[in-house]
């Protein structure tokens, strides 16, 4: 299994920071106007949440892995629910590379693989280097063509 770029943890932690800050602010507001318990409740809540998030991100990073097998793209991820997905190359409809603003800032990119399936219809591999993402996309495209889908559905 290939691991993701370790920088992806920074990305996830940044997202967690924003979420923790928002939730902390909500708790602070509730405390301020309804409970009147302590002004430290909000920031404390945010801090605990953030620490938990850091642990979670670390675990998530460790759980993530992808591999190009001879018949399928294999993914594994998930902390609480561990999910393994095999996407046969024959079933790949199209492949995207995506780079959001945060990705570009950190020099990351992601690959999205689409199938016609009902669930797992699109699988995302986050936290790749931009050229790595492009390479993976091209590789998947070639593998999809090689495996000759006479009819994708």
């Amino acid at each position, binding site marked *: 299994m290939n691991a993701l770029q370790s920088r992806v943890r920074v990305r996830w932690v940044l997202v967690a920071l924003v979420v923790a800050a928002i939730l902390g602010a909500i708790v602070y507001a509730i405390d301020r106007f309804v409970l009147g318990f302590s002004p430290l409740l909000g920031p404390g809540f945010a801090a605990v949440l953030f620490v938990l998030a850091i642990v979670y991100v670390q675990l998530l990073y460790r759980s993530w892995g992808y591999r190009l097998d001879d*018949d*399928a793209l294999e993914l594994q991820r*998930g902390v*609480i*629910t*561990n*999910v*393994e*997905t*095999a*996407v*046969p190359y*024959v*079933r790949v409809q199209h492949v995207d590379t995506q780079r959001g603003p945060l990705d570009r800032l950190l020099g990351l990119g992601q690959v999205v693989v689409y*199938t*016609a*399936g*009902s*669930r*797992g219809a699109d*699988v995302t591999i986050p936290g790749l280097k931009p050229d790595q993402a492009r390479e993976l996309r091209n590789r998947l495209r070639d593998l999809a063509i090689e*495996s*000759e889908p006479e009819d994708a*559905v």
Partner: protein
Amino acid sequence: MKLHPLSAVTRSLQRGLVAASFAFFLTAIGQFAAPELLGSFALIAGLFVLLFVVGVAYGVAYYYRFEYALTPDTFDVYSGVIGRQEREIPYRRIQNVDVTESIFHRIVGVAIVQIETAGGSETEATLNFVAADEARRLQREIRDRRARARDEGTADGEAAAAETADEATAEGVTGPSETRHADPEAVADRLSREGDLQPETTLFELGSTELLVLALTSFQLASVAFLLFGFPIVGDLIVGVFASLTGIEAPVDALTSTPDLAILVGLLAVAFAAVTMWAVSSVVTFLQYYGFTLGRQGEDLVYERGLLQRYSGSIPTDKIQTLTIQENVLMRALGYAGFTVETAGYSPGQSDQGPQSAIPLAGREHTLALARELEPFDELSFTRSPKRARRRYGVRYGLVVLGLSALTVGLSVAVPAFDLWYLPLLLLVGVPPAAHLKWKHRGYCVGEDHFVVRDGFWNRKTRIVPYYRLQTVIRQRTVFQRRLELAHLTADTATASLLGRQDATAYDIEADVAGDLYELNRDRLQASLRGGN
């Protein structure tokens, strides 16, 4: 060719009235903007007439500007009054030709034709409406032409190089079909072939007993909507029934004066709702499936159904993704079952009701035999989840009941007059049987060419997935499952409908078995692809 002339009349009336009703909307706005201007009745009436005429003109223009044609390779529709649209649909790509006749249509002898392709999430072309015979003719003609386009396509495709296969087949079809029209022998040949295709072989007819059983055992979502609208009336009825049963002529408020009484009334209302929904469901199902027949015409399964609204559609057998055998508690008790098929394409019958019903209901053995005609699967022998999965369900249900009790305890503390806090605890008695039944009806079966899973007590669904239709294979384990060494395994296939989403998942099976199945499904897919299925 044009639509039925009567469609011009109905459409222009419809459009005219819609446009005219706009007049009231405009005057309502005008009242605010310039009240003195809109004082006169004549102005409103004038506006009304003007808009009505515009609407009628549009309806008439639509009729004159709408044309369809069967060309050698494509079905063409030219439409649009102001913005023109010219659509050419290659026969090869057409999946379904559906014909719908409402009760009005049947009186007048017309029908709506809808043409579907695999792409997109909406109907590719709608002819609203043509004469009923014309609809049948189109349905047959298009199916016939498509079958031949495909035959020629495959024959040509084998000869042509792989990369140019598509262009080559397109040309391959044009050649012979153009000469066909010129050559009298070919025309004769075509006519005789049409004759061959005409009455399809009937596979199944829904008998009157079966229709009754189906009506009485079905649940339709439509009945929920009915209940919501009918609730005020039903509410009054309940009060009436309660009053006549107990002899208490109490106003409605008295019934809900104490929380305990309110709960009892609530339970009564739920029971009443269930009976009503059942009755409504029965009627709806009866009307929908009256006179259901299923036949085979070449590569298509053709079905027809409905009492008031007659509906005729088709299921392309070469596009079948999964097959689901459905048997709810009542059907199982009476020894009946039905099955639905999921095709990758969109179809109108599918959009609101999930996948299409191929056989709504038949004797269990008969259903299995018919299903095997579509997908020849082996004898089904299911492997159940390990016993510790059952314990897992027991714990889960127990926790739900305890949670509910905690809620009612909290409520009884907050509301002094509420004493029935222990009521949910009675449900604890039901937990072990519920867990057992859940466990008992879950299972998987690994066949030669199919992966089969089964789930559900109330409505048991047996999903049959051919290996060559697999899209992705997913194995997942939650923290709790990892502790018990259990896992879910999903064999995912293509589907068009999000509503009727069908996951073929084997729940809570041994983790290492799930691992093996994960590999096995992938291997079998590859094997079927190499085998050239």
